[in-house]
């Protein structure tokens, strides 16, 4: 008798393949969605102009270029619409069909969303090339060990984001329109993840408050790995904190789901 985990692992390649087929089927929508995350470009224009006459609080123009282009790449690879999907499925009762399958929706949806990541590189890769060719290249980290850690850090950022958004979507078990909470989330995310501007440029109390939330682990950590020179201890601490947030957010997501699914009303015929 195979265990549930080994069955789930065996199912993953097919789930990825079907997820890729779905992404291809929705390619136009997908591209438009990817192109909507352009806020960092606006911020880039604003801050390079501010820093054109000299560094602003230690950030030179090239630092801003590196920061915002790296932000754009990480955001492209880690963003997710899973909260909308979960909330809609709960609200309309479509979740019923998913619940009849012997695979936790967190895993099933996770696999299907991960399948979209290779397509995201179509947008992320050109941005990364622009970054390398731009003045920002000089502000990138040159430590190969640190750069090697970027990949797992982006993976953890994806997981923290996915688990948090899965939790927000699952709130539809308790309140009819959990998307109102998603809007609040996007506000806090923009402010506390470093998406709008680097956390060191925020008032100190905001930067301190941000450290107590999972938001920096969603974006700032991999961006810092790309753009700052970190000591080995700092690198280990940042990755450790990010791993901690990944474990905590997954735990919260699974708990909220377990409590919520008891309230599922499976509306409609």
């Amino acid at each position: 008798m195979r265990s549930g985990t080994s069955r789930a692992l065996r199912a993953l390649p097919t789930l990825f393949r079907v997820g890729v087929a779905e992404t291809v089927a929705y390619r136009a929508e997908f591209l438009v969605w990817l192109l909507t995350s352009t806020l960092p470009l606006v911020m880039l224009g604003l801050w390079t102009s501010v820093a054109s006459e000299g560094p602003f609080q230690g950030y030179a123009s090239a630092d801003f270029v590196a920061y915002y282009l790296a932000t754009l790449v990480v955001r492209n690879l880690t963003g997710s619409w899973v909260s909308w999907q979960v909330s809609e499925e709960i609200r309309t009762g479509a979740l019923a069909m998913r619940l009849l399958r012997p695979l936790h929706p967190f895993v099933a949806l996770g696999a299907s969303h991960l399948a979209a990541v290779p397509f995201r590189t179509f947008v992320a890769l050109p941005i990364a090339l622009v970054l390398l060719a731009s003045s920002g290249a000089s502000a990138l980290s040159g430590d190969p060990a640190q750069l090697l850690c970027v990949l797992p850090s982006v993976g953890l950022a994806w997981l923290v984001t996915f688990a948090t958004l899965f939790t927000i979507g699952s709130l539809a078990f308790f309140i009819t329109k959990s998307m109102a909470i998603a809007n609040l989330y996007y506000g806090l995310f923009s402010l506390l993840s470093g998406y709008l501007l680097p956390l060191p440029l925020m008032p100190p109390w905001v930067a301190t408050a941000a450290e107590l939330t999972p938001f920096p682990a969603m974006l700032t950590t991999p961006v810092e790995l790309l753009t700052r020179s970190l000591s080995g201890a700092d690198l280990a601490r940042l990755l450790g904190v990010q791993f901690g947030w990944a474990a905590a957010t997954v735990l919260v997501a699974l708990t909220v789901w377990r409590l919520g699914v008891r309230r599922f009303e499976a509306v409609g015929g």
Partner: protein
Amino acid sequence: MIRADELTKHFKVHRRKPGFAAALASVFRRRHELVKAVENVSFRIERGERVGFLGPNGAGKTTTLKLLAGLLHPTSGAVTVDGYVPSKRRPELLRSITLVMGQKSQLIWDLPPSETYAMNRAIFDVPKAEFDATLAELTELLELGKLVDKPTRQLSLGERMKCELAAALLHRPKTLFLDEPTIGLDVAMQLAIRDFVRRYNQRHEATVLLTSHYMDDVVALCPRILVIDEGKLVHDGDLRQLVKTMDPDKRVSFTLTSEVGADELERLGAVIGREGTRVTLRVVEREIPAVVGRLLGPLHVADLAIEDPPLEEILRAMFGKAREQRAASEAAEAGGAT
């Protein structure tokens, strides 16, 4: 085996009157109402049985099916399917049941059904050889042909329903919960699906629980029926027994070939339908031989048919009577209270 003991499901429903003022008021104060969708329902269903759920809209049929499939947690009472509590959604149970809902789709909308089948094979961990054999069998029984390679959104309702059934059965479930599987389908497709369900039941000794608005589905497929009204189980048993208990009289229909007076017909039985020369009488069962003898003898009628009363008629009378009794007892209670 399926066991339901005192199964109860209540929903809290938000109610508000139409209009802007009511909408505004509901922001500050919400009125909720308790809907008793299923109330103390108990039954046993043995392996391989085909059981139909009957009842008017909102009676609690679908809620009961969802409780049995583990989509809903009961408010009280207990339910087990093959020894498992469905709401715990143990993978072992999920691999042995299926739920088909005529109004909900599990097929991925923009991809061909074959992609959903591949995904289900992976999730249900069906070995490749078994999957191929089952798919071949389902393709033959449901005449799927090349449908499985067309994007789902381009399939007609009937085609989609056939593909839904295949998706739901690829893991060869032992228990089938079918909620309105023929809704919106034409007569030919209804017959095809009915025929398929019967054959699947016989071939795999699968238990089938069915709800349908089409009484013919239930009559043709289910020797046993559970009648649910306002969340309560009001009949559990043989279909013929229900008909006999509720209305033991037969329906005798025939075509007149010569003029027969109304008095003469009334002497044979109650005239309950007359369209031109076609007449339908309600006749007490023990008088059937005498009435048939007279109709075929002196009266020379043609196209004579003897049938049980239509199930729809019986259920309408049954639900109507139950409602009248409830209204009367509520009125009596209200009268006693004042």
